[in-house]
């Protein structure tokens, strides 16, 4: 395996594909390489080409979670989501751009079962062990999106600038379909460069997990209040970060037998989040 250190975004983008994979913090990529979920002959290091740091409302995609969680300019929901993610060691390596693109923790997917998300015909979790899995958008694939910051950014209405275009964070994610099993709309060779995060009047991120620290969300709830209302987004409840308009949207959840508790768990978290920002 070789490491490539391109000096421009264009060079980095051009180098990707054909056995070349982008490397930022590596906290998700390296374990996946080791587990052979990703195969790569070349790693393309993005450190020199992707912006890092915070300027006004813009966040470089190479900024680490550790940098964001202590930056007073960053809205509370995102700071809290970063602080509650992973462990200090992981947060000082992991970048916000990489965090948005991290793969699900679904154990079937991680153990390389020939599941729907891997291109197979069925979701093993639906019939199998699925207490960490989805309650929305889970018909074909019941995996849960693991990113805390993604839910916070979704509630904050963040926009994403890539090497090719600008799009809302909501457009970055898509449920996997029969024809396309990806959960993001990024095209091959497309890199996330920067986020633009509107300043809310108030925001918060609340997280339920299996232990006090270093666990992916069972349910994470982000709420952000703007002049025109409150936006809610959830982590850990669908294959992608999930927007809700209100608590009553939970009535439309489609939980599996082992995830029904997540609906119950989301209710008080949403109420508390709303209470906190209003």
């Amino acid at each position, binding site marked *: 395996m070789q490491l490539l250190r391109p000096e421009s975004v264009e060079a980095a983008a051009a180098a990707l594909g054909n056995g070349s994979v982008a490397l930022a913090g590596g906290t998700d990529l390296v374990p996946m390489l080791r587990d052979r979920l990703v195969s790569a002959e070349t790693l393309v290091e993005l450190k020199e080409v992707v912006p890092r740091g915070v300027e006004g409302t813009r966040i470089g995609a190479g900024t680490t979670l550790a940098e964001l969680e202590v930056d007073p300019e960053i809205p509370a929901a995102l700071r809290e989501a970063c602080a509650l993610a992973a*462990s200090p060691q992981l947060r000082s390596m992991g970048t916000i751009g990489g965090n948005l693109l991290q793969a699900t*923790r679904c*154990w*079937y997917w*991680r*153990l390389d079962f020939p599941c729907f998300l891997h291109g197979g015909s069925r979701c*093993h979790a639906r*019939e*199998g*062990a699925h*207490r960490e899995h989805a309650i929305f958008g889970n018909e074909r694939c019941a995996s849960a999106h693991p990113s805390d910051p993604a839910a916070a950014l979704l509630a904050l209405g963040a926009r994403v600038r890539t090497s090719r275009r600008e799009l809302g964070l909501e457009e970055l994610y898509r449920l996997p379909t029969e024809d396309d099993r990806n959960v993001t709309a990024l095209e091959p060779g497309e890199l996330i460069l920067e986020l633009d995060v509107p300043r809310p009047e108030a925001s918060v991120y609340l997280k*339920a997990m*299996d*232990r*006090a*620290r*270093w*666990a*992916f969300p*069972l349910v994470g709830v982000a709420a952000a209040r703007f002049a025109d209302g409150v936006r809610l987004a959830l982590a850990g409840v669908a294959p992608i970060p999930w927007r809700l308009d209100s608590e009553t949207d939970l009535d439309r959840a489609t939980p599996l037998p*082992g995830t029904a*508790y997540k609906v*119950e*768990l989301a*209710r*008080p*978290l949403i109420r508390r989040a709303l209470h906190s920002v209003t």
Partner: protein
Amino acid sequence: MARLIRTEKEVEGRYTEQWVVVEEDAAIDQWPAGPRETVGRPVPRVDGYERARGQALFTADVALPGMLHAAVLRSPYARARVRRLDLSRAREADWVLGAIGPDDCDALTLEPGFHGEPVAAVAVDSPGRAREALELIDVDWEELEPLLDPEEAVRRNELHEEPRRYERGDADAAFADADVVVEAEYRTQTVLHNPLETHQSVCRWEGDTLEVYISTQFIWGVRDDIAESLDLPPDRIRVICNFMGGGFGAKNGAHAQTFIAIALASQTGRPVRCALSRREENLATGNRNSTIQRLRAGARSDGTLVALEGEFVNAVGWKGWSGPTYGPMEMLYACENVRTLTYGAKLNLPPNAAFRAPGFVEGTFGLECLLDELAGRLELDPLELRARNHADRDLADDRPYSSKNLLECYRRAEPHWARRDAVRARSEGPWRRGVGLASQIWYGGGGPPSYAWVRIGSDGRATVITAMQDIGTGTRTAMAQIAAEELGLPLDRVRVSLGDSSRGPYASISAGSSTTPSMGPAVRAAAADAARQVIEIAAQRYHLEERLLTMQGGKVVSSDGGSWPLEEVTGLLEDAQILGKGARGPNPTGMRVLTFGIQVADVAVDVETGEVRVERIAAIHDVGRVINPLGAQSQVEGGIIQGVGHTLSEERLVDPASGIVLTQSLDAYKLPTIADVPEIVVELLDIPDEHLTNLGSKGLGEPPIVPTAAAIVNAIRDATGADVRSLPVSRDEMLRALREARERERAAAPA
């Protein structure tokens, strides 16, 4: 003189009769209770700096010249048959130096019965390429239907042994007469040992002698396993374990990795390391198996227990043993009428292994939760209910205890228990607070045979020599303290040499909380033997009567005023040395040697989200004399932290259809982090057991984990009224129990 005796030996509740040789020419009186010069005082680990500096050599650090690295092909299925195993491509590759299958090694099989069972193995000279070499093995698998449901296994009579039946008194009659009967079904999950150091061995042939470096809890057990399996004379096997990164019961024998390394070393003529990855560790090295417990208790209205009944299903896995889940029910209380029935289900799941008080952790969870449900029905104080049913004598075996101070533990628990009104009053908003307790019973007496030598050099320094192992619990330090105490030497003049079967006498297994109670008395006897010789020499040299001389403060001291530095006496020997020998004497005949205790837990529960925080645990245990209060406190803290993980977050999950283990890595299998650790208050009674050995010490490795889960779950009930009956208390289980409690309250409310 050597004395041959027939004695009962107990390891983790399993008794066997065996012959042992003990040497007890001079019986040694126990020291008076209380702290001594060194024993009974807090001492930092004697090997602390070595560990902190990275100088302590673990098996993981062993790198022998020419050493190869093994990788193991494991079954990807819970049950399969290998139709064809072809090693020829691996054997032909010039970079693959060894390849073995079931024909070469009994630890490999063509009919794997669990996910992760070893089928074949290879050896290469680069650790990075070992796994790659596995791809050169051609296997034709036939996947077979696995049996995964323990209840179904019981129905089909797929059991490891005949169901175990126990009855004393007449349970049916007693239940019929009881004023109150409570019953409930409890479930415990499968949890994994996860020692920091995974299972690993390095094996090398040196002429006709086999050297085995291994992370183990029992050097001599490894030697015996290998001797028996390979039909080798035991003295041609040398087993070495200087520093060890934890085992918790999973490293009591040679295990598959050792036999694989030996077979590959034999085939290649090179030293071979076989070290498991974390994922392999979490597949194939053992676990605390899940249990189903259907329990019933009958009592009179004054709280007297009249009958206990339990049906236990141990989901043992493909290999292993059916643990004493029934133990607490049969042993903890003075109940005349007890009936238990225990099944050990044989399933296509990874084998269990002893895990820190096996059976009793699970059984105490069920029994002690049931006791609190009974206390609730009787409207009795749970601590009072336990005190009323205190057993003054062991009813399971009809024997007296060698010592028992459980009522004193209960008394010492009162101030912690009395805080509960104040704790409950701190409930606010969705956070409800409560206090719970649970009692503890377990073994921990150790026993013979165990031997030690003490060597004193002309420099006046002593070395304890024994082929025991320190599995990370700090027994190296405790042995140094015991020898220093007996020799009247400062601790820094005593070294401990352990961990090598060819450098020291036979020593105890480090399981069943037995290292200190087994080895400590042997070390003291050896030190006393050496001290006697020093005094004999001094008496002759200085023309004094032996009875006037003692060893104190690094000197030989005469009661008539004279004193001589030890090195002045031993200096007479020039390069020669004094060698004292000691043996562990037998356990007291006709007595039950057990450990006791109680834990009191404070918890906070968010009744809307089901979040449980354990805020404080007070642990009061009766384990006889405490050698090192600092090390003992560390053992209690470790046991409780492991207990908190068992109670709240740890669970090994398998795919219910295929039996494939899903939680192999440490992000999926959730050990507690430091943020989950409560305030821990440790109180040890430190009362020597006057009948047990020349020390009066019992073991402490296991007792602290026994009552933790029940104490936490009883505190949850105290805080919320919810009956948690299944571990772990995950959000799903906590929310379910809260919902059930609300529905019960609603149903009970007047219409």
